[in-house]
């Protein structure tokens, strides 16, 4: 059963805070560091990857917040949106196409995230994305926003707003692109061949993606490739042995190894 106080306790807050920008940033960070992303559930969902997009907040709360599993984008962001709303924030749904490994972008509805309106400004809120990405809400601005050794900015490009990231070394890299207009969850129920084809390819790959934030960055496990982002520095490692893989999964899902 969805419980604001238990939720806040899991995120390390002992009392109900005021809906300020600072509190939002703190909860966002804590959420990413506490509740991991885990795509392994998609494996059982076939091509109906977005069927459960309108989550049952009570059931998913029990499984993820007080249970011990990770979640996918619409679960984690759905729960967080509910929390923020109950704390008095004005929130809504956004959708994004994620930059793929070949440099292209996924379909517009691929990824579900949120926005929150604070002090009259809309901020991107996303605790359901494996990253590497922002740890605190992002302003929709092409000004550089610095977070934990990493730079972010949001730049317009061909009708989209593209979230870009730049670590301590390297160039600006797109994270995902979006139209900054609120979405209705019913949009995902319309037939969409682009989305279906995308789901088919994803299902074919079967690669499991998991991740969680740390104090200074993120740990992202894609298949057997572990990316550790620490203070803006990316370290890649291939986990060749099962033991190394198990350790990494246990660490990310916060389970005993």
């Amino acid at each position, binding site marked *: 059963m969805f419980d604001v106080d238990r939720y806040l306790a899991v995120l*390390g807050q002992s009392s109900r805070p005021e809906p300020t920008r600072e509190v939002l940033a*703190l909860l966002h*960070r*804590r959420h990413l*560091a506490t509740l991991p992303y885990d795509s392994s559930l998609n494996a059982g969902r076939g091509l109906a990857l977005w069927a459960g997009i309108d989550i049952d907040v009570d059931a998913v709360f029990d499984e993820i917040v007080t249970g011990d599993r990770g979640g996918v984008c619409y679960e984690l962001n759905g729960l967080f949106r509910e929390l923020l709303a109950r704390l008095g924030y004005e929130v809504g749904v956004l959708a994004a196409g994620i930059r*793929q*490994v*070949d*440099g292209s972008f996924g379909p517009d509805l691929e990824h579900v995230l949120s926005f929150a309106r604070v002090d009259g400004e809309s901020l991107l809120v996303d605790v359901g994305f494996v990253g590497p990405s922002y740890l605190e809400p992002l302003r929709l601005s092409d000004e550089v926003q610095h977070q934990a050794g990493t730079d972010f900015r949001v730049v317009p490009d061909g009708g989209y707003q593209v979230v870009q990231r730049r670590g*301590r*070394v390297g160039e600006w890299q797109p994270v995902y692109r979006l139209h900054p207009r609120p979405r209705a969850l019913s949009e995902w129920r319309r037939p969409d061949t682009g989305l279906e084809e995308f789901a088919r*390819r994803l299902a*074919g*790959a*079967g*690669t499991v993606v998991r991740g969680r934030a740390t*104090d*200074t960055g993120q740990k992202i496990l*894609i*298949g*057997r*490739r572990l990316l550790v982002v620490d*203070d803006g*520095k990316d370290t*890649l*490692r*291939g*986990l*060749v*042995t099962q033991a190394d893989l198990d350790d990494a999964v246990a660490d990310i899902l916060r389970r005993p190894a």
Partner: protein
Amino acid sequence: MSDDRLVAALRAALVENERLRNGAGARSEPIAIVAAACRLPGGVRSPEDLWELVAAGRDAVSGFPTDRGWDLGALYDPDPGAAGRSYVREGGFVDGAGDFDAGFFGISPREALAMDPQQRLLLELSWELVERAGIDPTSLQGSDTGVYTGVMYHDYASGLREVPEGLEGFLGTGNSGSVVSGRVAYTLGLQGPAITVDTACSSSLVGVHLAARALRAGECSLALAGGVALLFSPAPFVEFSRQRGLAPDGRCKAFADAADGTGWAEGAAVLLLERLSDAHRNGHPVLGLVRGSAVNQDGASNGLTAPNGPAQQRVIRRALADAGLGPADVDTVEGHGTGTTLGDPIEAQALLATYGRERPADRPLLLGSLKSNIGHTQAAAGVAGIIKILEALRHGVLPATLHVDRPSSRVDWSGGAVELLTDARAWRRGAGPRRAGVSSFGVSGTNAHVIVEEAPPAPVDDGPTGPPPGTVPLAVSGADADGLRAQAARLADSLDVGEAGLADVALSLTTTRASLAHRAVVVAGSRAQAVSGLRALAAGRPAPHVVTGSARVDGRIALVLPGQGTHWAGMGADLLAWPRFAEAIDEIAAALHPHVGWDLRAVLTAAPDAPGLDRVDVVQPASFAVGVALARLWESFGIRPDAVVGHSQGEIAAATVAGALSVADGALVVAVRSGLIAQTLSGHGGMASLARTPADVTERLRHRAGALEIAAVNSPRSVVVAGDPDAVRELVAEVEAEGGRARWVPVDYASHTAHVEKIESELRAALAGVRPRTSAIPFYSTAEGAWVDGTALDGGYWYRNLRRPVGFAAATASLLEQGFRVFVEAGAHPVLTGSVQESIDGSGAVAAVTGSLRREDGGPARFLTSLATLHVHGVPVDWSPLYARTSTRPTTLPTYAFRRRRYWLESEAFPVTTTSGPETETAAAETPEPDLAALPEDARVAALTEIVRADAAAVLGHSGPEAVAPDAVFFETGFTSLTAVEVRDRLAARTGLELPSLLIFDHPTPQLLADHLAQELADVRR
């Protein structure tokens, strides 16, 4: 003549006599054979292998090789008259004659393909030879070592119709005889004479003769001498078939009645030669001596290629004269003995006429020939014969010569005392040392004879006899990661079966082997630990006390002396057994004695009556002592700092190590100052370390002005604050609430704040007598943020050091900027290595950082592991103090595990004329597409692994698949998401499978990916 002039004349005469004696001594000095190495038919890869073969009476002659493009079907014709055909179809061949570890020698696959395999074989064999002498091959760089190499075949690339693409420019040097010796000299950096000798079948023995002469003449101090012969085409068989000079069965029946011709074979054999006195002085093994040698010519004989008996007699007599010996002083002759009906009788008669005379009838000369086992290895034959003799000396047995039905009836054996070795015989020492003559006669008429003598007794070992160290570093290395792992496996195997002491092995690894780029050290206290560590290394598994790295760090060394927080009960106690450490501790204990009421050794060993480290006036002097003693220990192992830098109170130890403070003054400063802190400041403050940037902390301190100050900036994101305990507590809580890391420093005072102003005047007064000096090692001050001359480190400085914040991050950054690349923290537990690493990471420099000891892990094993950390990164370490005064001695080690791949230019098939392109193994071009479906499971995975490696290498822009090892992790070898997709695209195209773009995310190495692809292909077929 006056007395004076007489004395002067006598003195001059004495000097002249001495000079003559030295000259004569040098001219006749025996030449020591300090190592031997060979590749011969029958899978012989070492002198030991050769002994096994001859001792067992094995015959190594086999069918023609199938891997050289010879048209075996068309080649054979039993009719000796058939043009272009060979009536022989067997010979002695070297296994893997085309295989080579090109990467090890820094040779590109393309050049390796164009290079004569004789050059390549000689390179590997030369490296191995030097290793077998217990000499680090890289240590010969720039020495006056000579190279004398016999070569007679120059036709590797001669069958090419046209030069294959990409090989032009390499074929010239790659196939020149001169470059066979020149390339060895070039690769090892040898500056003595490098000479290629071609006297046909006597080449290698002539090489030995020339090398011995050059050594005696002082032209070189060490020489590699040997020869190589590989058969690139069947032409020698065809040619000799016409002359009917070959035994139809390919066997040399030396000196036998059944002799019916010679049998061609391949081989490579080399010796390392050194003047005997040098070999003894350098501690090199002496396998035997070249006691004397001679070379001559047949002259205008019976025919250009016909042997000349009188010339052979003369060369034997000259060699005996060179050795100062008579015929009876030699027990046996390893004959040329090729098994020809013409040559063998002439040789036997010459032996009968020389060695057969002038000797007792009951001690006949024993005659044998290695050619009966392996065939005629031509340019390598003479040295191969010497290696057989060296092994026979070692084992005390003269092995049997094969295929002798009865001694040749064409020889009058009654002409002297010569007997054929038809059976193996014990080889016992008579009146003098055992000796053998070795003969080689070239087809062009150049004869050589060498007299080999058993090694004299080694000089008495009167070295130290203390017990060897219990814990030792086993250092192994490879030119690449695979080589390192293969080497670890070899060493583990040899430790499994060998009897050499572990310390002897450890010593030998660091003194008799090259330290190549990819390095690892296993620190072991027992053979079992050593083997398990090496096995882990070979399997690529991490293991405790095993460090690996690559020698990429190049720069100056900074010694870092830490401040608070390194101590633990028992720190340093386990190192007191090491004299250098104990001496330093005792020196400091004596210096502390006038100022403290306790005993340093008692404190370090946590003796029951000693005060605890919870007292600031105990822990600071004790940490000072351990820091200074560790610095001395590092220095004794060759880690001499180019600068010292101290953190807070660590600056007192740093100044002492630098020589700015005497040990007495260092002890005074640390004892007096910590005493004042204990009396006056203790209980009034607190300190905490925060994982926050300096800017962030400055911001937080703004509204806490007066209560808190920044005490130290350790790294760009690690700051220490100090001040009133309540304020520290509140700030720690604030940072923790944000999820940040904050840690109390376990002290109850506030250094580097206004608190310490209370003791300023008292401290200055107490330290007024400190007499700082210009330091021997530059001192970078973290209190001043600059290099400081030692004379400035007076009492006033030691107050400022306590009052001002510690600019450690700035100091580290500045040192990095000034080219410091090695940071060694001399403390009982590393507290600054993390901060240094952060600064290194931020700077992008390739640098190494290590601590010394660790909490509860403060003995020799940990210190050696710390030393090893530097060694594997390329910092030269002097391991010798570990073995000083002990009975540890160099021992035999496995040689380098070359990672060979085949490179072979296929010549035009002979005699049938069909053109075939070169068999390019140079990957990145086009890898031939094997029919995967037709292959059995194992072979399919292997083929797929090769395909994956080739594609991965190509995408990364490497010239060949060897750049991507089968177990290389893609994302650690330079892959990005984009290049990952390229590999996927290539593999999808090759296999026809639909493959996901995240393919190599899931299957992170070529091997794992090949397994997966094989599975996918099998699934598709089902």
